[in-house]
């Protein structure tokens, strides 16, 4: 098993796996709920109604955050793999990634949470 030497590399690796697993789990649930359109409007609308609960609105922000982190960190991995100087700058890339993550997440979370209808 690959374990990195703590710090940024270790954390980015753990987050990459955790967010990947979380998104995969949601993908499987999402395939099942979308499958229900085949059974007509009554069933589909009843099931989609569940997602309108405020708990899922918070979960939606978590989903976006997981996909965004996984995407940005994936770009960092590709840069380290293919850019000859990438590995030397892996910490800078990680902190750049964190800044970009926060900059995108703030307006997205604001917009998503403003959709909540109590």
């Amino acid at each position: 098993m690959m374990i990195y030497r703590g710090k940024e590399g270790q954390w980015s690796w753990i987050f990459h796996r955790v967010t990947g697993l979380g998104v995969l789990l949601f993908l499987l649930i999402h395939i099942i709920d979308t499958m229900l359109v085949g059974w007509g409007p009554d069933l589909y609308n009843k099931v989609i109604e569940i997602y309108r609960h405020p708990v899922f609105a918070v979960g939606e922000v978590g989903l976006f955050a997981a996909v965004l982190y996984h995407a940005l960190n994936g770009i960092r991995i590709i840069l380290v793999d293919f850019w000859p100087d990438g590995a030397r700058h892996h910490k800078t890339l990680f902190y750049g990634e964190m800044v970009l993550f926060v900059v995108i997440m703030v307006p997205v979370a604001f917009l998503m949470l403003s959709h909540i209808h109590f």
Partner: protein
Amino acid sequence: MTEPSDIRAGRPIPTGSSFELFAWFFMRVSGVLLLLLALGHLAVMHLINSIHTIDYDFVAERWSGDWGMFWRSYDWLLLSLALLHGSNGLRTILDDFIRPGGWRTFWMSVLYSATFIFLAVGSIIVFTFSPL
């Protein structure tokens, strides 16, 4: 001691197995495509629209309107790349945490079967759906 310049953030490039090399490359190519497809999907469905505007009629219009074939193709590409990217990611996790032997074979079989079933079900719905 490993020098900082030797640290790689991704998996080391696999050598000695053409399948592993292909899988390694697939994760990077599908990853870039998924960045566009998944974040595009999130932007359209969760930021421009929201769970309060999405219902059966929304899906029916989206998959049957003038842009119906475009969205069906988009959704199918996202579905298949995400599922294959995700199940290959889970495969590397199982490889890490389960020792070679019977149980690894068992869980790998579960993984491959589930991937096949979800891909089949998803593809059938995306391409055979017709509104009532």
